[in-house]
């Protein structure tokens, strides 16, 4: 991809992209507001992108909704699990009487209705059964409700093939988003300072590059190492809680469940103890209170996380504006929404 900046007016040529097609009147009317926000070029890139959403829980449903409304070329919903009663708290794409059906397939009908101009399909197979090539056909892959090992495998394939990768999940009231866009070239418009100033010249456009690290590097951080130990103090505790919760999922092949809340909490705290011990952290840093509400999936938190993730997908595809670099942890109870930057 070649990016040139000419007198502040930017023309971008991208190899391998379909030739520019004029928007139909229908598309222009439907996407009117967002074209006014992010521009025609960005909308065109969106219209050419193919998105794979793995894990159709609350966050998957929210991302699917926002991305389909935004007008991408295609969205594939992938999940090998069945709809459960628990989905009623956040998964609004499945009907309440679909309990027992495949979660991706059960989401298909409502997802399609959101925007008839987007090709939406479902995949009920297991992630581990798919060959590497399956994942290379997409522009962006969003992973949730997935084991660490499979998430890392997909991340590796994505990196090798220039596919943007996001991992995200929710535990009750807390959630996270991880981003790996490889070597990400993007542009940023600088709006002149001074609110509302009438600006006669076109905005200055900056070309920027962001480099990302793989998911695995972050999941395997050893906080005893000098570089990391030095930043523990400044690091919000939420991220340690996420690592502990991901370890719970890895060991039990499920997330903490409201029905087994007390037992799960006990197990989580013991994993926490192991984790702080191993990483030379204090229990006070990774306090019990961080795990008070970590069962199930809370709808409003899915809405916030899925909204943010969709925004990041748009940024990744449109190559516009600063992306999230690279680990976002959200805890609305503690009132924290921090982005940790790992390089």
């Amino acid at each position: 991809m070649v990016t040139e900046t000419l007198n502040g007016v930017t023309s971008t040529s991208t190899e391998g992209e379909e030739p520019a097609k004029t928007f139909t009147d229908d598309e222009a009317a439907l996407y009117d507001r967002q074209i006014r926000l992010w521009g025609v070029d960005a909308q065109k890139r969106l219209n050419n992108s193919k998105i794979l959403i793995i894990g159709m829980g609350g966050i998957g449903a929210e991302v699917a909704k926002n991305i389909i409304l935004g007008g991408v070329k295609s969205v594939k919903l992938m999940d090998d699990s069945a709809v459960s009663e628990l989905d009623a708290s956040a998964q609004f794409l499945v009907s309440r009487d679909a309990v027992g059906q495949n979660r991706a397939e059960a989401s298909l009908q409502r997802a399609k209705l959101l925007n008839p101009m987007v090709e939406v399909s479902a995949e009920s197979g297991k992630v581990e059964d798919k060959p590497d090539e399956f994942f290379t056909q997409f522009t962006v892959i969003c992973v949730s409700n997935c084991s660490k090992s499979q998430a890392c495998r997909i991340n590796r394939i994505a990196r090798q093939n220039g596919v943007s990768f996001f991992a995200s999940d929710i535990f009750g009231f807390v959630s996270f988003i991880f981003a790996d866009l490889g070597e990400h070239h993007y542009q940023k418009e600088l709006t002149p300072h001074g609110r509302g100033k009438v600006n006669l010249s076109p905005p200055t456009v900056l070309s920027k590059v962001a480099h990302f690290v793989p998911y695995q590097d972050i999941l395997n951080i050893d906080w005893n190492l000098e570089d990391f130990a030095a930043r523990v103090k400044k690091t919000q505790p939420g991220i340690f809680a996420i690592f502990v919760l991901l370890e719970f999922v890895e060991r039990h092949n499920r997330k903490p469940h409201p029905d087994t809340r007390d037992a799960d909490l006990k197990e989580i705290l013991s994993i926490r103890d192991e984790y702080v011990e191993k990483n030379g952290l204090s229990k006070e840093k990774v306090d019990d209170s961080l795990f008070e509400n970590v069962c199930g999936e809370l709808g409003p938190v899915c809405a916030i996380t899925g909204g943010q993730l969709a925004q990041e997908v748009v940024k990744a595809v449109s190559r516009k504006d600063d992306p999230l670099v690279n680990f976002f942890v959200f805890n609305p109870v503690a009132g924290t929404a921090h982005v940790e930057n790992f390089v």
Partner: protein
Amino acid sequence: MASEINGLLPKDIQDLVLKSKIFVVGAGGVGCELLKNLVLTGFKDIHIIDLDTIEVSNLNRQFLFRREHVGRPKSHVAKDSALKFNSNVNITAYHDSITEAKYDVNFYKQYSFVMNALDNRIARSHVNRMCLAADIPLIESGSSGTLGHVTVHKKGVTECFDCTQRPHQKTFPGCTIRNTPSDPIHCIVWSKHLFNQLFGLADADEDVSPDSADPEAISSAGKAALETESEQPISRVSTRQWAQGCEYDPQKLFHKFFNDDINYLLSMDNLWKKRKPPTPLDWNSLPDAVASSSSSASRRAPILLKDQRVWPIAECAEVFKKSVEILKKRLEDEKDGGVLIWDKDDDVAMDFITACSNIRSFIFGIYPKSRFDIKSMAGNIIPAIASTNAIVGGFIVMTAFKVLKEDWYKCNSVYIQNRVNVRKELYHFDQVMAPNPKCYVCGEKPEIVLKIDLERMTVRMLNEKVLKKELCMIAPDVEIEDGCGTILISSEEGETDDIGDKLVKEFKIVNGTRLRCDDFLQNYNLVINIVIMSEEEAKDRDKSVECFELVGDRSLLVPKEEDQATNGKESDKDPDAKEAEAVADDDDDLEVIAMPEDDVKVLGTKRPLERKDEGEGTPLKKRKLAEEPSPASGSAYCMDTEVETIDLD
């Protein structure tokens, strides 16, 4: 539903959610997301109101609606769609205006709390007053592009919506619009005025003819122009009458507005000493080119959107002709002297504005704009997207949990920024502020100072522009505190109509007169202290379109009247604000929000420091200048994001 799953929500919240009855105002972008979240969370008794019907441009984000719903009431369709998420919920939908008298204080009292998902200041301010009157907590929200805001208002505990005076919609000086435009927006505003003069509700403040009283023109040699004014038909016959007289002949209209009037402007030669003089256009020899363009580069990019093409002048004239013909016919079809209402979504009205403003731009050597861009500016469209609305809708429910527990200490004002600030935050949580004791709405004895130009302010202007538009009243009664209780404005229809066009000075209104205003519906009483503009100020004001100025609370007048009074004017004169002029359009996308940068600005200029120590003992943020610049605020923030380059390994 979360509330039906034991172990998901904390027990106390679960119980409160199950038994509360709640009210959502607005079923638009935020409203749809919010309704979904409320149903998923397991609220059982939800009421929702919206006045609007569904439009195609809503569908990219208002996900409860689909193409086949276009034209149907938003609240009804939202209810039906949300019930599919859980049929075991009671949703009551009202297709109505929230300002209707039937939604009175008792109506509000049935709810545990109210959530605003609105798009305009007047409705927000109205719900704020109703919630204050009913003492019901209000969760306020807004979204604009990738920015969003959620906060809480609770009577006597936190600030109310009106505690912070929001930056007013700015207007352009009348003479810039009428005589010396220099930016496309000036020509767009002029064209909207022209539309109203010809087909809409003609407003004396929206004159489109040359302004011979322009101080700049008169200063020395402009006298000649003043004298010739009496010969001009424009000053004696209204634009509407004149247009009717020539049967809206497009060619004659064109000649008047784009030739005669321009020649008249040229005669005010003082104006053109330092400016490029305008070029009058002749219908019969129109240039074929796209108007003089400084942005030739923009045409190099491939045009992917039909509306992005910039029309050549000849085409503008053709569109002008066609749109005038259609609008003329529509006006004739209106019954009982009805008029047309300008609407950005009306294609013909939009064609008219695009053609007129580009023709005028050409005349003044201003670069042209595409219909797409002109629609953004004329319609004051603040684009809304699904993802931001989803985030805002999520935060409203998270805030609702704290409201249900009456955890006012823990309530936050949340700012959604779509970029990471210096504190590494993606969302910024700020403490909610304590009430402003001098607030003109929730203060103990609300008073406000209004500076008026006695020679221009009529009773109707006072009612429409000050009380309704600026102060967001719905049905005010106004009595002069003159000892005899003279009624100046009555909310009873027709009661004071006959005096509407009289100047307020005919009612012995002088410096220091107190007007008692009462909005029965809002349970709101306000005393307006009148201050008369000095002649000099009035002359100055003449350049602008408004003939009044809200000075703020009474205390501001005492120490240094002059300084305080000019404060506001500085900003009025600012030729800024692309988003000017469009307050009147209740665009569903106009979701005005105050981001931290606004807050700091407002705090710094409007809130006296002396209040620093007041409100001691309140749990919430004291009303004083922000202790430290908010990390998300102002230019420091903008710079910061540039300095903080992304780590390259």
